[in-house]
């Protein structure tokens, strides 16, 4: 039997609730009461939802998984870049790369847009609001 994504998500919710019950057993009553009171009916409801989804007619999925994966990969790359080189450098680099490689925008136009994005970011957060952004790991290693 092939389990649908809908049923798997219900199973995931039941799993989260099950883990909550398991973890809460080790805590004092004061700390465990509220999570237990929430997690027990959640397991029941998620399992009911699982049964409902297993019995339901299969829904035809739209073939978008590749595009979804690529978009998540771009967002993951953004987070990784922030970690490595910090926000102020990530903004122009990542926007430029995204516009060129994912958006198929020309190099010059992409550079202008990325520059505008950086100017807005720098002017608003760093100059006007004086918001402190942490340096990336690379800058820290280099001693900046």
């Amino acid at each position, binding site marked *: 039997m092939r389990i649908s994504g809908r049923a798997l998500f219900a199973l995931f919710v039941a799993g989260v609730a099950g883990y909550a019950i398991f973890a809460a057993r080790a805590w004092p009553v004061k700390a465990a009461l509220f999570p237990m009171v929430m997690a027990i009916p959640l397991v029941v409801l998620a399992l009911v939802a699982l049964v409902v989804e297993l019995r339901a007619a299969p829904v035809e999925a739209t073939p978008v998984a590749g595009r*979804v994966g690529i978009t998540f990969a771009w967002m993951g790359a953004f987070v990784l870049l922030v970690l490595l080189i910090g926000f102020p450098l990530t903004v122009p680099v990542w926007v430029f790369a995204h516009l060129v490689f994912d958006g198929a925008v020309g190099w010059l136009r992409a550079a202008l847009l990325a520059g505008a994005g950086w100017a807005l970011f720098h002017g608003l957060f760093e100059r006007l609001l004086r918001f402190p952004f942490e340096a990336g790991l690379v800058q820290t290693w280099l001693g900046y």
Partner: protein
Amino acid sequence: MLDALIASLFLLLQWKALSLMLVGMALGFVVGLLPGIGGAATLALMLPFIFAMTPVEAFAFLLGMHSVAATTGDITSILFGVPGEGLSAATVVDGHPMAKRGEAGRALGAALMSSLVGALIGAAVLALSIPLVRPLVLTFGSPELFMVTVIGIACIASLSGSGTRAQIKGFAMGLLGLLLATIGQERQSGTLRFDFGMIYLWEGLDLIPVLVGIFAIPEIIDLAVRRSAIAGSRPAAELGADVWEGVKDTFRHFWLVVRCSAVGVLVGILPGAGGGVAQWMAYAHAVQSAKDAKDREGFGHGDVRGVLGPGSANNSKEGGDLIPTIAFGVPGSGAMAILLGAFLIMGLHPGPDMLTKHLAVTYSMVWTLVLANVITVLLCFAFLKHLAKVTRVPGNIILPFIILLVFIGSYTANRQIADLLVTLGFGAIGYLMVRYGWPRAPLVLGFVLGKLAETYLFISVARYGFSWLAQPLVLFLIALALTVIAYPYIQERRRAD
């Protein structure tokens, strides 16, 4: 009293106070558009600048900024599906689908006009009720406040959609939200819950990364998959053309706007509940106000009433929020706690003095709420047609900038890289929820209310045992919560008959 009201207006209209209010409004406008940096954080950032100001100037500056941030937060919620503030997430649910349908102008018109009506109602209640509200606030102890959170949780019944399957999923998501709120150090015993050995989780999950992930990332994915502009291929001329229609919608559903404003004021008055709660309760009330299950079907898919309800509540809340802050020095929210700091910097003591000796300052706050909102909404209307056209920018160009907005917003809330991962993780969960038909609103409502509910429940049990359950006001609130849960079913039964 009337003399003080008029005198305070003239104090506010002096060039220095007025200029500072306009500067504050400009800051609030920008801050409102950015997720993460909320009104409270900006108030804290701007507090050092008020030392050289008079009390009227200081509150014109701070309140001008704060009240406008709540209004403009709706703009990014509608245009991009990215909540501009934690307070404006409920506007995403129906506002963004309207923008995708090419009705961005109408949604923006409705959001701004209802915000203005809400702000005016909030200011009026503030002006009239300060002397009267003392008994109400003092009547609400921890058992009653716990029951208010229960009523909020009961709204899940309305936010889940119709049918048994939707209700099961809705209540499951509400419980999951409540469970997520328990992450972090438990306040009574100090036990660390679900921290997985990470210091980051000791304080629990922050609302902004969770909200932005759950609501904005699925919209980003949708935009990336469609590879078109947000409003599809609708002609640019059409997009801003129906702003006036949104204004008319506010008056077509005027009583709904008034009722949702009242919800905002009431939640604002009660300490600790916060604007997010007011918005979701108002949204749930808007859903409940539908005539029957068929009339309710449009909610979540771009029903203008889903924009009007939260729009009016998040601005009326500001007036309500100020009442206990001014009258007793009891801040109703984080932003009001910071504003309390401004009182002390100015050498003012909240309480009876604010109603006698400093009445002009108190009324200048009322006028600031009124003037700041009127000016913002009028200015916004001048640019709405152009704002709506943002939804025509090709998807491949606007997409990286929306992603940027999302992640900068998540980061600026706490300056933690881990918040970016939380946004991404909850983005994936939000995407799966949309794909597999699990409602997101109940999860957010549960998450917003979870900590409050647990804290008030613990204090109630510690102070009164279980005898608080028999208190008359608690019994009334229990009945109200049951009515809120039962109402959608009663409606459906009536329709079936």
